[in-house]
C-alpha cells in the first residue's frame, strides 16, 4: 500500500488507464493473433493487480493465487515465444522481445510473494495483519506505509526497481521513435497501425515505470 495520497492516486490513475488500454486492445485488436490479444489481457490484469496493491484493501487479496497466476504468465511469455515464433522475425528475436514481458510479470509475482511473506511473518508474530510487523510501517504522509524488513528482499526490490526503470526507458524510447517516425497524412494524422504500436510500447513503458515506483517505495 502507498500511504502518500498523491502518489497513490497518481498510480491509481496510471494503472486504471493501462488496464483500460489493455482490455480495449485485447477486445478490439481483432487482426492480431490470439497470443497477442491474450498478452494485452495479461497486461490489463497486471495493471489491475498493481492498482489493488496501491490501496490498503489490496493487501487483503489472497497472495498465492496471484503468485501462481503471474508466475504462469511469465512462463507463458517465454514458452509462446519458443513455441509460436513470429513469421516475420527469427525465433531468437521473438524470444528477446518476450523476455521483458516475462521479467515484468515475474517481478509482479515476486512482489506479491514478498509482501505476502512479510504479512504472514507479521501474523505469526502476533500482530494484526494490517499492521504488518514484518514490514516497517511509516507515519502517515510518508512515501510508503511499508518497506521490506529483510535486507535481501530490500536489495532484490531495489534491483528490480532498476531493471524495471531500464525497461521503462527502453519501451518509452521505442514508443516515441515509433510515434514520431510514423508516416502521416496531409492533415498531420499518423497511420492507425503506427499509433497503436506506439501506444502499446508507451503503455508497456508506463507499466514498467509504475512498477519501478512500487518497488522503489518497498526498499
Amino acid at each position, binding site marked *: 500500500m502507498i500511504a502518500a495520497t498523491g*502518489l497513490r492516486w497518481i498510480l491509481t490513475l496510471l494503472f486504471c488507464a493501462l488496464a483500460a488500454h489493455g482490455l480495449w486492445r485485447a477486445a478490439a485488436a481483432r487482426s492480431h493473433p490470439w497470443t497477442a490479444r491474450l498478452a494485452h489481457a495479461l497486461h490489463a490484469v497486471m495493471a489491475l493487480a498493481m492498482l489493488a496493491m496501491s490501496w490498503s484493501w489490496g493487501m487483503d487479496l489472497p497472495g498465492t493465487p496471484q503468485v501462481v497466476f503471474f508466475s504462469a504468465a511469465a512462463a507463458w511469455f517465454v514458452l509462446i515465444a519458443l513455441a509460436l515464433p513470429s513469421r516475420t522475425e527469427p525465433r531468437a528475436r521473438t524470444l528477446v522481445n518476450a523476455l521483458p514481458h516475462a521479467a515484468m510479470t515475474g517481478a509482479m509475482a515476486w512482489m506479491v510473494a514478498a509482501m505476502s511473506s512479510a504479512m504472514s511473518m507479521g501474523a505469526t508474530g502476533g500482530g494484526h495483519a494490517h499492521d504488518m510487523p514484518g514490514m516497517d510501517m511509516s507515519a502517515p504522509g510518508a512515501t510508503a506505509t511499508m518497506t521490506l524488513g529483510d535486507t535481501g528482499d530490500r536489495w532484490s526490490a531495489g534491483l528490480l526497481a532498476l531493471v524495471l526503470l531500464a525497461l521503462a*526507458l*527502453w519501451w*518509452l*524510447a*521505442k514508443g516515441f*521513435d515509433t*510515434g*514520431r517516425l510514423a508516416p502521416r497524412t496531409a492533415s*498531420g494524422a499518423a497511420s492507425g497501425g503506427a499509433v497503436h504500436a506506439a501506444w502499446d510500447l508507451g503503455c508497456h513503458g508506463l507499466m514498467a515505470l509504475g512498477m519501478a515506483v512500487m518497488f522503489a517505495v518497498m526498499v
Partner: protein
Amino acid sequence: MTETTPAASPPPRQRSAEETAPVEDFTTSAPSNAGGTWSGLRPLLLRLHFYAGILIGPFLLVAAVTGLLYTATPQIESVVYRHELKVTPHGEPKPLTAQVNAAREAIPDGQLVSVTKGAGDSDTTRVTFDVKGLPEGYTQTAFVNPYDAEVRGTLRTFGEWLPVRSWFDGLHRTLNLGDFGRNYSEIAASWLWVEVLGGLALWLGAPRGRERLRKLFVPRRDPKGRRRTLSWHGAVGLWVSIGFLALSATGLTWSAHAGANIGKIQDSLGGATPSLSSTPGHGTHGGSTGADSGDSSADAAAARVDLDEAVRIARSKGLRGKLVISPPADTGSAYVVRENTRHWPEQQDSIAIDPATGNVTDKLVFDDFPVLAKLTRWGIDAHMGLLFGLANQIVLALIAVALIGMLFWGYRMWWLRRPTRASGTRFGRPPARGAWRRVPGRVMAPLVVAAAVLAYYLPLFGLPLVCFLLGDLAVAQARRRERERTEARAGTPKEMAR
C-alpha cells in the same frame, strides 16, 4: 504610433542568416535526426520556454514586483517606526523584568511569548505577546525604552517583522490571500528555474557568427526590433541567471507543497535543522505540560532565574548580538535564549536554561549544524535581503528589475512576431506543434521520466505542465479534425466531377 503597431510597421525586409536562424525553429517540426540531438531538442525547448513564459509570466511578474517592493522595507520600517525602534541612551538600563512588567500593562490581555534584547545601546526592547483574536502567526509587540521602562508603542507583528514589512512579506508570499495565495508564489518558484535553464540552453546554443562572446554577454544596441529585444533578453538573462536560480531554489524550500517534499529529502539526507530541547529534565519539574498551564511570567517570577539572569548566563556562554529570550512555557520547561543575528556571519546559537538551577541543559551551535541546514539558513536570509545587509537588498532589487525586464522583453518579442498584415487582433506565432517528433526516443524517454519525477516533487510545476499538455493535445486533435473536414469538403466536388 511606434514601429510595433500594424499601421506603422515597416515592410518585410530580408533578414540575415544569423537573424533568421532562431525564427526558423518556429515553423519546422518534421522529424529529422540531422544535426544531432541538440538540433532536435531545440525546437521542443523553445516551445516549452515560449509557452511557460507566456502562461507563467504573470505569476513571475507579480513575484518580481512584490519582491522589489519588499527589498525596500527595512529602510521604510526604520523611518516609519523610528519612535518605536530607537531611543537615546541615558544611564543604566532597567532590569528586563521591569521592562516586561511595563509592557504587560500596555498589553494586559496578552500571554508573554518572548523578549528581544537589542544588540545596540539605542535599540528598544521588544516584548512580544500572544493575543487572542490575532491571525495565525501574528503577535502583539510592545517596544520598551530600556532606560526608563517607558512603552514607546505597541504594534502587531509577524515573527520579528513590523506591520509594513509583514504586509509586503505577505503580499510577496501569498498576495495577502492566505494559504490559497501561496500557490501563486509556488507556481512562480516552480517554473522560474525551468525558464532560466531552458533559456540558458537556448541562448548558449543559438547559432552565432563573429564576435560570439560579445554577442553572448553584451546586449546589442544597433539593430531595432526582435533581434535587439532578443539580445537584451538573452544577455541580461545570462548575467542574472545565477540569481534567478538561487531565488527559485530558496523560494521552493519554504513553499507549501514542494517545500514539504524538499524538507523530507533534506531530513533523509541528514540535513534537518537541529532543534533545542526546552525540557530541562529536572525531577521536580517534569509533570506539567502544555503552554496553557498558567501565566508564564508568573512561572518565571517563581523561579530562581529571572530574565536578566538568563541573559547573563547566555552572555557568559558566548551568545552575542541580538538575543531573543523565551520564558518557560510551563513549570517543566526551560528558558530558551537564542541569538538572532541574520547577517553575515550568522549568529544563531541557542541555549536552554533550567529556571530552577540556572544550569544550561541544552545548547545548539550554528557552526555544528549540518551543511544543508546552514545552506537553508543562508539561502533564506539571502532571499530576504538580510544576509549581507544593504548590498544584499540592492542585489535583490536588481534581480527583481532584471526579471521584470526579461518578462517585458519576452512579451515584446511575442508582440513583434505577430502578423501585421492580417485584419483583427492576432497573436504572435507560437513555436510549431510536433517539436517532440524531432527528438530521438533515447533522449525523449529519460526527459519524460525526469519531468514526471520533478512533477511529483514540485506539484505546481507538474499540474500546469499536465494541463498544458492535455490542452495542447485537445487543440491539436481539434485542428486535425478541422483540416480533415476541410480536405473532405475540398475532395467531394472532384469525386462528383468524376
